[in-house]
């Protein structure tokens, strides 16, 4: 390190970027140390090198830097973070430095935060059911180990509550090991961060958790590094230490905003709504760091949370996310307004890996058909609700009215549950059959007769 040259040739400062002139022997993407006039140390990363000019993004922001008094050193290596199992139970900033007042954890190894793509041939297909204790998820959009399943929410909806409930309750039935949780907060407010810390402390989950905090007033460049630091730890815990890691990333919308901000500062050609054209690839480099590897015991399951700007699911952030993740859990403002918690709208929600994680030997044989029937019945009930709003209930047939009763009961008794209520899968399916029994038996066309014989409750 000592041989590296110190440059004092900052030519331009723009937003979070500084441009350094006359550099030689500088590598793309390498780590940079920036010293301001007072001698304060900041870190950054090389974004582009064009002839002798290096564009550097400064993680801590450029406030206070000048072209005359700033010195820059290129470290000849990418940004790495120190890793160890001692990081569980601790709180870090986006660069992996402890911010809970404790000493730096003992380091077992250093790794590049950018990670490497998992070889598709080495992947093992996720098939193990994770019980979250939440009926709408376990019953309808089952989460499996190694999946990436985001929560699409909106401002003011209880996604934080739901995320912490899942972090507390997630278990594999029949196995005593609990998840290690890596919790990543990006651009969230101080009081939200306090809520998370308190919630983890109270439930005793903190000792198995590593928390990475990048708050709303922290520099946006650091926000881009935060999930990568956290996922580097998750990969270490999963694939070196055989742990099952649940990674909760909140809020990906703030991350994407930071990405747009940096892109604009670099004067790049924007694509939709000003977001950079590479946002899909960039998000994929985060989300694809979930999964399992053949021959390894551990796994990484991701639950990113994002707030859809203006509740618009076609906005680039939820849209690109949905194209990468293996399904989505969608929260609904209307359900929330009616006091239903968790306000999960099952119709646009989906778990792509559900089919391989449920059924005989995994959950219960009737699980798949029951979920499918609930979907189609609830879709029918929603359709009839809007119809009856126009023509009145009198215009409906008796069968249609049964669907309306089903719809109401499904929301009140199946979807709805307490913030501390941890339902077993058996309980979830029992509730599911109670709802289905509100419909005439002949309507259950998606369920084989043998299950109807066992579980259908004739009134």
């Amino acid at each position, binding site marked *: 390190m000592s041989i590296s040259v110190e440059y004092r040739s900052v030519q331009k400062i723009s937003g979070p970027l500084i441009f350094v002139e006359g550099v030689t022997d500088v590598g793309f993407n390498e780590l940079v140390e920036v010293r301001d006039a007072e001698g304060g140390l900041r870190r950054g990363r090389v974004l582009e090198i064009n002839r002798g000019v290096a564009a550097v993004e400064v993680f801590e922001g450029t406030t206070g830097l000048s072209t005359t008094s700033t010195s820059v050193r290129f470290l000849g290596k990418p940004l790495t973070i120190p890793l160890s199992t001692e990081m569980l139970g601790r709180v870090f900033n986006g660069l992996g430095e402890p911010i809970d007042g404790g000493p730096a954890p003992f380091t077992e190894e250093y790794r590049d935060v950018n990670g490497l*793509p*998992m070889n598709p*041939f080495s992947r093992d297909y996720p098939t193990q059911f994770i019980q979250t204790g939440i009926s709408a998820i376990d019953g309808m959009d089952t989460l499996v180990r190694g999946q990436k399943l985001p929560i699409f929410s909106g401002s003011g909806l209880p996604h934080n509550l739901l995320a912490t409930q899942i972090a507390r309750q997630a278990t594999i039935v029949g196995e005593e090991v609990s998840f290690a949780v890596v919790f990543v907060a990006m651009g969230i407010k101080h009081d939200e961060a306090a809520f998370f810390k308190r919630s983890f402390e109270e439930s005793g989950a903190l000792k198995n958790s590593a928390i990475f905090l990048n708050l709303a007033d922290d520099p946006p460049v650091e926000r881009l590094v935060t999930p990568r630091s956290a996922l580097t730890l998750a990969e270490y815990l999963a694939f070196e230490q055989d742990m099952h890691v649940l990674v909760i990333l909140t809020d990906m919308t703030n991350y994407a905003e930071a990405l747009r901000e940096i892109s604009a500062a670099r004067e790049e050609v924007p694509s939709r709504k000003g977001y950079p054209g*590479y946002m899909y690839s960039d998000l994929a480099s985060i989300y694809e760091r979930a999964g399992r590897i053949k021959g390894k015991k551990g796994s990484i399951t991701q639950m990113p949370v994002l707030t859809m700007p203006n509740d618009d699911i076609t906005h*680039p952030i939820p849209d690109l996310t949905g194209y*990468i993740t293996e399904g989505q859990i969608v929260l609904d403002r209307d359900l929330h307004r009616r006091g239903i918690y968790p306000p999960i709208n099952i119709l646009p929600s989906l778990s792509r890996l559900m089919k391989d994680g449920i059924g005989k030997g995994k959950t219960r044989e009737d699980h798949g058909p029951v979920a499918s029937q609930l979907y189609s019945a609830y879709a029918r009930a929603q359709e009839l609700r809007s119809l009856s709003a126009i023509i009145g209930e009198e215009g409906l047939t008796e069968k249609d009215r049964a669907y309306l009763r089903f719809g109401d009961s499904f929301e009140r008794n199946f979807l709805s549950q307490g913030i501390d209520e941890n339902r077993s899968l058996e309980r979830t399916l029992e509730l599911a059959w109670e709802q289905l029994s509100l419909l005439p038996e002949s309507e259950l066309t998606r369920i084989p007769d043998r299950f109807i014989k066992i579980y259908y409750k004739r009134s």
Partner: protein
Amino acid sequence: MAKIGRIVRITGPVVQAEGVAGLEMHELTMVGNEELIGEVVRVEGKMATIQVYEDTAGLKLGEPVKGSGMPLAVELGPGLLQSIFDGIQRPLTVIRDATGDFVKRGVKASALPRDRKWHFVPLKKRGEYVAPGTIIGKVQETPLLEHRILVPPNREGKIEFIAEEGEYTIEDCIAKLSRGEETYELKMYHKWPVRKPRPYIERLEPSEPVITGQRIIDMFFPVAKGGAVSIPGGFGTGKTITSHQLAAWSDCEVIIYIGCGERGNEMTEVLINFPEWKDPRSGRPLMERTVLIANTSNMPVAAREASIYTGVTIAEYFRDMGYNVGVMADSTSRWAEALREISGRLEEMPAEEGYPSYLASRLGEFYERAGKVKSLSGLYGSVTLVGAVSPPGGDFSEPVTVHTKRFVRAFWALDSALASMRHYPAINWLTSYSEYIDYVEKWWNERTNGRWKELRIKALDILKKEDDLKEVIRLVGIESLPETEKLIMETARLLREGFLQQNAYDPVDTYSSPEKQFKLLSAILAFHEISLKAISKGVPVSKISSLPSVTDLAKLRMSVPNEKADEIDRFLDRVQADIKRLAGEGV
């Protein structure tokens, strides 16, 4: 002469090098001390711009850039089948052995195994003159496919030597050709540049449908062998499952599946399922006819751009052996985005939504590589292209969908409303279309007593009427409709639930033989005719629809296996008897 330049600029996957006069467009180059693989995308004087197929982190100014004198090419020969390659045809198995479970850069790997021996059977004799593309021998590559050894399209001559039947590796010389003064050694493989379509004798009009076993596709919106089709759909509408189903069940001899910028777990799913799933015609594992190309979303973006060319070039090679080849590219939008990203780094003037202005012409060039041809070998072969499109926000007016529509002749529009009702495949029957109907009509009519076209028009008509009636019902309720219209709603429901919906995870329903498809559709339409008569005798539709046999009609797709399709006729007799009984006619 080695052309060596120096890196002067690095921005993401794009590198500029100076001092390399004579580099050609699309020339393969070695970038940096680690010799990362790249391709020239722009030349200005002594300056060349190169897209690099691997991660460029750590690359420094001043590192060397070397030209190879060759364009980016693929290796074509025995060993392609059952392989999984990255976007530039490096086997992922070899990469794993070299760098472990995570893909590191700088791996040099031959596409085809060099040490494996194949049983070569010569088909030509010494002294014969062979033209480009002639089949000179064969290798049984897998039990499903005979790999025909071709004279490369740019070689011809008199056979001076041809190897005897026996075991050879692909590096062994199996023939020598002479032409004038020159002689060439032929091996079982040759290379071909990915961006250059392989030559053929002539293009032909498509005439035969690809039988996919998917009812809505085969009966309503068929694609012909040698056709091009697009599957657009927002996320969660089932593009990938539809692509998987086509790769699994299409009656093509060879399938090339390109996972272009998509999820890693989806490729794993294919890798797990295809060796287990059996081809419905031969009973052999599907993997024996499949080549996989996986460049997942987190792998280098430039290699994603190359992956569809790699795939389609391999497809053309099998076409030239006289096979029908199906190519599934999931998703072409990710390819277009890669194009956009590289274009942005090149600081080109963007057209719509940041895409480069040449997006449309690139798409056109790609889809034109589909076709039915008389190949140089004299055999007929075809390449059918199926491109999934992922429109942002499910909006079909975005540039990739719009431009793709200009170059494909069948369009399977996936619909998020259908998907959220769990109606799969979520292909919307009102907005999808196929221009191949007239081409494949003859094929179907020969197998259905000339009734195929008439049935599909009738069925689509009922579904269209259902859509119109829905508007009326929204205003006045179903009870105020006349009985004949109520029947339309009932028949349309049967069509949707008993014919159009198809469960990819149900062992019986996942593949429907043409015979079963036709019988199912005829049965539902026959039900409509029988019921019309009953209505005229005063039987209400509500009584007909609550008959248990009518409820079961919707379940035949799952309860009747392909080989017992005749049971559908007998079942229809039962429905007919039940309805006649309602009308008081006795049996």
